[in-house]
């Protein structure tokens, strides 16, 4: 139950998910409770990023699991997602009514543009970290075009690119991006 409330608080006070969570997690888990060291948290976090799933949820599950096994993982995750469910449900319930005002429509007209800018920014940032060689560039281009031009599911693209990585990038391990 402790785990539930700790992660409930984290979920309730982390704006933007993922990366924003790290400092709060360090404060709650390392400084306040000494459940893990700074390096361990970074390791959990790194693992949370490469394992499928949402980073915040992965890291929460991992810490909970280390602490109290399967149930610990479950309660940490439930704690983490509870605030979202509550807050978003409230917003979504009223959002429809808000949408009828012209002012709100105009505001969201502007906001939609900035969301595209945020996405573009995320792409640029991830590009710098992920696309480091010709193979990477080709994989980027292919997956971009496949999604734009066909109805193939992103899931197929992910699996295909993992296989391509296995075949084409294994020997480059020494220089591969980390």
């Amino acid at each position, binding site marked *: 139950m402790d785990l539930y409330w700790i992660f409930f608080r984290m*979920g309730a006070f982390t*704006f933007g998910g993922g990366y924003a*969570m790290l400092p709060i997690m360090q404060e709650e888990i390392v400084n306040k409770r000494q459940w893990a060291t700074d390096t361990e948290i970074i390791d959990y976090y790194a693992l949370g990023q490469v394992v499928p799933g949402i980073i915040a949820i*992965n890291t929460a599950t991992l810490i909970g*699991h280390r602490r109290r096994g399967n149930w610990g993982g479950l309660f940490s995750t439930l704690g983490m997602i509870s605030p979202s469910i509550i807050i*978003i449900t409230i917003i979504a319930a009223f959002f429809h009514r808000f949408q009828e005002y012209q002012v709100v429509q105009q505001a969201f007209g502007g906001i939609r543009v900035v969301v595209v800018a945020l996405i573009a920014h995320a792409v640029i940032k991830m590009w710098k970290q992920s*696309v480091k060689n010709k*193979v990477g560039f080709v994989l980027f281009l292919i997956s971009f075009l496949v999604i734009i031009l066909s109805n193939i599911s992103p899931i197929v693209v992910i699996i295909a690119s993992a296989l391509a990585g296995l075949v084409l990038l294994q020997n480059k391990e020494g220089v591969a991006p980390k």
Partner: protein
Amino acid sequence: MIYITLFLEFFKIGLFSIGGGLVSLPFLYDLVDKYGWITSQDLLDMIAIAESTPGPIGINAATFMGYKTAGILGGAIASLGMAAPSLIIIAIIVHYFMKFNENPLVRAGFDGIRPAVVGLIAAAGFQVAKISLFNFDLYKTTKDFSQLIDLKALVLFAVMLYGINRFKKHPIVYIAIAGFVGIIFKF
């Protein structure tokens, strides 16, 4: 049964989104395409809301979409579906912990996935850009090229992209600014 569909669809998203924040976007877009639970415009509004409210973006988006589709229970089920793969996978790999990361096969696989994920997000971004930066539908009906480009939106886009890169403030700041700009310049 809508609840089962919701759970399974978001389970798949949780299973295949690797990384943080916007990586689930291409999958959400795919759902919009497939089921029409919400519109592409709703998707953009949803991202803005998910980024401006506390909690992981993916979970926020799942709750929002689930709620729009099947009410309160739908929101909760979509979120649980999205979180479930993490629980299962972490429980399995926690035993192999550190070694998992260092396995050359695993790393080569992820080195292939990462650039593809960037491509997926770029594609989803491109598709939503068609709605908010260009008036494709209007262009299709009028065939008037000058109608295609929404100049106001493009200027705002360029300024915001520059600002995001330059000042690195929290997304909520830019979302608030864009909201005001939208009201003042009547977007």
